């Protein structure tokens, strides 16, 4: 057995020592490490991995990436970071130093993108953080000029939500009381921190302001407390399992506030197809898209055809847009010159499935942050400056109990 282990070890070292030969640009190596297993796998497998697959499919269908006059085929290397940031950093180092990838794609999630940012920066790879929403975005972009924060900041999210609620309150659809719960995690804390002053400034009163730990299973007390609070508006800065749990519990306890808002996961198509079914209309959530935009419609159709699953209505198109930006920047530069590519992304204007994007200090300033399920689709509501923004509808129709 010892011999077997030493053989494996020797094999491992040999395999690790082999470095990709850096031949002339007859193919472009694209690599990424992402959470195929572990707690992050759910988000990654809904939002990020399918878009990467779609993008590779699209490039291959076009005969490769266009460098100058020629189309260069791509080679893809995928690693599983096991939802561990140490494994992520190791995999990123492996991609850069052993596999010698030309382009590295980003992992899924705010924490993972922040963790691997230093590695991207060390080697000067453009870092398209498409699933990181944080108020640290501008700070990180200044620290790592090669990093691009495609989902904007949490404060944008708080402001967009406040905008929607202000509209509803102005129309007399909801009272001025808000019950807010947030997941005890960077995401929930940032959004609730940003929402408190924004809601107060808009004249709302927080009659409930609680946080709950990740992996909470029983939401009955949060829902019952919200029910008893007298608020017409329920806001949850939640993660997908909690979004589903809170929604299911609200239905099962007959809690029908005029405005019901949950965060990550609301814009997933499984929220409609697996969790809420015909109860989905009227639910407010984080994210949104311009569902009438033909470019999005075409994108959604191809996403379903190629990957077998529909895109989500928030970060999916943004993720694909970030890949389009990367591709356009590469093709404009005409060769794998990462410094030039980074510069192009910083300054250029790009036409994408998520609209025309021009980054502001490396941060995408125009992102849908609040949306609503209307007629079975999740439409963007705010910021209302976004093209195609719809008007919010309230009160939400009462839940229909499921037998």
């Amino acid at each position: 057995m010892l011999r077997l282990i030493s053989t494996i070890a020797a094999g491992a070292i040999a395999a690790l020592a082999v470095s990709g030969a850096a031949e002339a640009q007859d193919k472009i190596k694209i690599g990424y490490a992402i959470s195929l297993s572990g707690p992050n796998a759910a988000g990654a497998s809904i939002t990020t991995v399918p878009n990467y697959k779609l993008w590779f499919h699209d490039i291959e269908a076009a005969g490769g990436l266009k460098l100058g006059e020629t189309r260069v085929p791509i080679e893809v290397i995928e690693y599983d970071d096991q939802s561990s940031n140490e494994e992520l950093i190791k995999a990123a180092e492996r991609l850069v130093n052993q596999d010698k990838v030309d382009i590295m794609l980003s992992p899924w999630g705010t924490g993972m993108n922040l963790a691997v940012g230093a590695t991207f920066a060390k080697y000067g790879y453009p870092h398209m953080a498409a699933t990181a929403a944080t108020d640290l975005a501008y700070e990180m972009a200044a620290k790592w000029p090669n990093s691009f924060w495609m989902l904007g900041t949490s404060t944008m999210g708080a402001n967009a939500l406040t905008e929607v609620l202000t509209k509803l309150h102005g129309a007399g659809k909801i009272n001025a009381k808000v019950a807010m719960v947030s997941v005890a995690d960077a995401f929930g804390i940032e959004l609730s921190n940003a929402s408190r002053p924004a809601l107060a400034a808009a004249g709302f009163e927080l009659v409930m302001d609680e946080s709950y730990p990740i992996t909470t299973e029983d939401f009955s007390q949060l829902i019952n407390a919200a029910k008893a609070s007298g608020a017409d508006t329920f806001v949850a800065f939640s993660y997908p399992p909690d979004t589903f749990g809170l929604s299911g519990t609200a239905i099962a306890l007959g809690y029908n506030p005029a405005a019901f808002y949950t965060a990550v996961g609301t814009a997933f198509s499984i929220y409609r197809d697996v969790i809420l079914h015909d109860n989905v209309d009227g639910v407010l959530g984080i994210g949104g898209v311009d569902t009438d935009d033909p470019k999005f419609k075409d994108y959604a159709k191809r996403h379903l055809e190629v990957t077998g699953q529909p895109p989500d209505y928030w970060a999916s198109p943004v993720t694909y847009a970030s890949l389009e930006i990367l591709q356009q920047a590469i093709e404009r530069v005409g060769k794998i010159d990462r410094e030039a590519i980074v510069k192009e992304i910083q300054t250029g204007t790009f036409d994408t499935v998520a609209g025309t994007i021009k980054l502001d200090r490396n941060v995408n300033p125009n992102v849908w942050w609040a949306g609503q399920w209307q007629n079975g689709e999740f439409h963007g509501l705010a910021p209302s400056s976004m093209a195609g923004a719809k008007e919010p509808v309230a009160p939400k129709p009462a839940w229909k109990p499921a037998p």
Partner: protein
Amino acid sequence: MIAGDIILSGVILGGIYAMVALGMTLQYGVARIMNLAYGEILVAGAFAAYWLYASHAVSPILGLAVVVPLAFVANWAIYVLLLTPLVNRARSREQLESDTILFTFGLLFVLQGIGLAWLGGQIYGYPYLQLPVDVLGVTVQANRLTAAVIALVIGVGLYIALTQTRTGMAIRAVSVDPRAARLVAIDVPRLSGLVFAAGGALAAAAGVLISMSQTFTVGGGVLFTMKALVIVIMGGAGNLGGTLIAGLILGLAEITVARLVDPNLTIAVDFLIFLVVLMARPTGIFGRSA
């Protein structure tokens, strides 16, 4: 009103927790297998219920009749084919414990790996009995109430079976002292295999019940394993009554803290109670002294 809500919701959550831990108290307390892949079996039960519901419109309660026997056979096969060599090789309880920890750690990865390849990392769930019911003036979720009632029925039934039947007596004897049990003509290896299989069947049943009101993922088993371990150890390994009571204590404590103190401390209070109980009673609430 709030008091009634807390008590009823607490008992429901506690009943579900106890159900999650019942199988493990059999597997660890009696068959002496520390099964780190326990949660994966539970999650497999949840997926089986989902599949029956989504593809064949079979209600999860009826689904129990399919899932439980299947899980029993599968777990019995795991014991006979994979664990028996380790049991036979072990020279002491400590060695068996460390061997089975390492083995089931590997099994956990295998089951998760198969699940990921097959079902992916997505979140699954289905709406079942998603409606409010009124119990003594308190509104509760019909699906969770149903799950808790079934769990308590199974728990109490098992308790009666263990205390009132000859097989139950033999199982309790093995749990107290396998060597002594052998001396009174109990076929300990065979019984251990059956108890391990029963534990796996209970885990799958818990998975079915949980799937009625919660979402689940392929990778989510570990949380259930750890919850079950905490409850089993807190109640006293191998003690069914202890497991039921420990589950109820944690359920009530969580709900009370969520409503009256701070929902952010629900998991903290679980572990705090667990630690305090162990400091006061080093072998659990109903544990035998070591």
